[in-house]
């Protein structure tokens, strides 16, 4: 069987700067909420991949964010392994209970835009057209699976995450799971009802052509930041423009210019990075995603340019 380690996302090759480092985490009180700047960084050579992974998780704001990042990394690695082994249908063992809890938890984090991709019965995995994910276990609730394993002698382990054993209010995922399981106890068909509802949702037309978020590869909504700005006003009464337009001065020794990636992040990843500490280095795949889109974009521009070349003065 094929194995990958979580820290592989930080495995860097060559000498080039290969990581994106978060420079400016906004929503410091008084600033206007419109900048997510990152900087290309070489990464501290003395740190091993595992240490970098730990630094990433330590730099995130809350248990919810850590679980979110963990999910993103696991999905990325699964997709990479599937591609390496050239497996197209990827079977995921999400039970009905897990899908129902995930739906509610994704909704609560603001991921409604990409829901059908993340919990659908059949969906292109992680936005790539060459790996399709199926979830054949969605008809079973968790208890049924547990009993099946017990009576047929299947061995299983509990894989601990950041909030295993923690009280309910530790993170959104934990709260949601406890809630859905409890609700299913009082209203017996809750899980199957929720799963059926999931199947009736589909992507919005804008989502099908939207750019991919550089962190989670889900479709990124076009106006997430403006929407937030209009509804979470940060401006004092007598001023017309935002009080602080602090552009980060790149005064560090490493004088790479900072890139504004606000439009390349989906709503939910904006929240995730907003609470992260400046200086947090994102996994290598973020840079790959950033460059990949750029290549596509450049390619499309080139195509367009060729079409109108004769008219350009």
């Amino acid at each position, binding site marked *: 069987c094929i194995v990958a380690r979580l820290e592989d996302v930080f495995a860097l090759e060559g000498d080039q700067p290969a990581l994106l480092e978060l420079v400016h985490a906004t929503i410091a009180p008084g600033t206007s909420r419109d900048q997510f700047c990152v900087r290309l960084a070489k990464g501290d050579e003395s740190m091993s991949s595992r240490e970098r992974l730990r630094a990433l998780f330590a730099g995130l704001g*809350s248990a919810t964010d850590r679980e979110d990042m963990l999910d993103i990394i696991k999905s990325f690695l699964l997709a990479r392994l599937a591609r390496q082994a050239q497996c197209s249908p990827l079977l995921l063992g999400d039970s009905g209970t897990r899908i129902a809890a995930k739906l509610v938890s994704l909704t609560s984090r603001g991921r409604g835009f990409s829901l059908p991709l993340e919990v659908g019965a059949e969906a292109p995995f992680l936005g790539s057209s060459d790996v399709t994910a199926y979830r054949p276990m969605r008809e079973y609730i968790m208890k049924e699976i547990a009993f099946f394993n017990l009576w047929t002698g299947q061995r299983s382990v509990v894989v601990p995450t950041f909030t295993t054993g923690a009280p309910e209010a530790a993170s959104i995922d934990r709260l949601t799971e406890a809630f859905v399981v409890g609700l299913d106890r009082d209203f017996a068909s809750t899980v199957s009802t929720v799963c059926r509802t999931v199947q009736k949702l589909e992507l919005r037309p804008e989502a099908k052509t939207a750019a991919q978020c550089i962190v989670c590869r889900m479709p990124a909504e076009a106006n997430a930041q403006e929407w937030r700005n209009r509804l979470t006003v940060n401006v004092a009464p007598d001023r017309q423009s935002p009080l602080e337009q602090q552009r980060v001065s790149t005064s560090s020794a490493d004088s790479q210019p900072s890139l504004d990636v606000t439009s390349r992040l989906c709503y939910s990843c904006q929240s995730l990075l907003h609470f992260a500490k400046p200086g947090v280095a994102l996994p290598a795949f973020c840079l790959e995603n950033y460059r990949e889109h750029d290549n596509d974009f450049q390619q499309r521009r080139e195509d367009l340019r060729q079409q109108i070349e004769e008219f350009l003065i």
Partner: protein
Amino acid sequence: MPRQCDICHDARAIVRRPKTGQSICKECFFHVFETEVHNTIVDSKLFKPGDRVGIGASGGKDSTVLAYVMKALNDQYNYGLDLYLLSVDEGISGYRDDSLETVKRNKEQYGLPLLIVSYEQLYGWSMDSIVAAVGRKNNCTFCGVFRRQALDRGALMLDLDHIVTGHNADDVAETILMNIFRGDISRLGRCTEIATTGDGYVVRSKPFKYAYEKEIVMYAYLRRLDYFSTECTYSPNAYRGYAREFLKGLERVRPSAILDIIHSGEAMHVAADVQLPSLDRCERCGYISSNSVCKACVLLEGLEKGIPKLGISRINKLAQDQEACPPDRREQAVDVVHFEKLREEALEMRRERQRRSACQQSACACAGDSV
């Protein structure tokens, strides 16, 4: 050491904002709250100048703050709206009497005209008599169905273009969660719309869609607004309580979760091949309905015939009940006014208004005098 306001960096901070956790001063709080509602109104293009807008007023904090803010914004930004207070008297003694007194005080305080419509007047049944007939278990269904129709009737009586209700962000988020848990796909697709055309005649919208309930309370407290806050004496529906409890838990973990849920709800899109109920008109009263007879008429029929479960329980069980105790007519209901008649009267009022304003403008001989 006293902390400075995070927004203006000038005055001393006196509250922590529930939406963002910022410590801000009173003036900044009023400003951000009002500006966000203004942004909501402008971005969704809710109103146009000259609109006659009814504020659904229950006397509770949401509707009191709504009346205050609508008036303030109308004045500050010149929306050009004619504002009215529209209140529904369900006939719940002890509870509704007190809240209606509050609405009457609001009328004086804000200087807005008030219309009160009551279930007794419209249907012949008050909530007290309904609960006496039905019991305490499904009474919320009656109240909700009747109130919706009552507001629309009141709006037509005043010839309004628009009704605004005080539904806040917490309400909308709870509704989204509730519809997910109950699998109500058609409501899920519609519940995040800020404005609904409903009847086709009067638009209904929620300017507070993105305002947190805690902030509304804070606003009412800091502005010293007069409102009535007690739970309805007939206990609230059980299912929404679960969604509410979950939402409260989420808010504690992450305050922005409420807005995030609304954002997700807005992004959800029902698949094209899913069957959605089509909207039709009730054959008895002309109200909008997805069946041939609207829910209100069905419920009224049940009350009249002494089959209180009509419209709530299934039919086979009903037949058994009927055999057990034959129905006796109550002769209590009034014939509901048909919606077509209400619409015609409203149109007539509108034409009269337009004629009168045209006359005044063109300074013709009949200017100013009325019918």
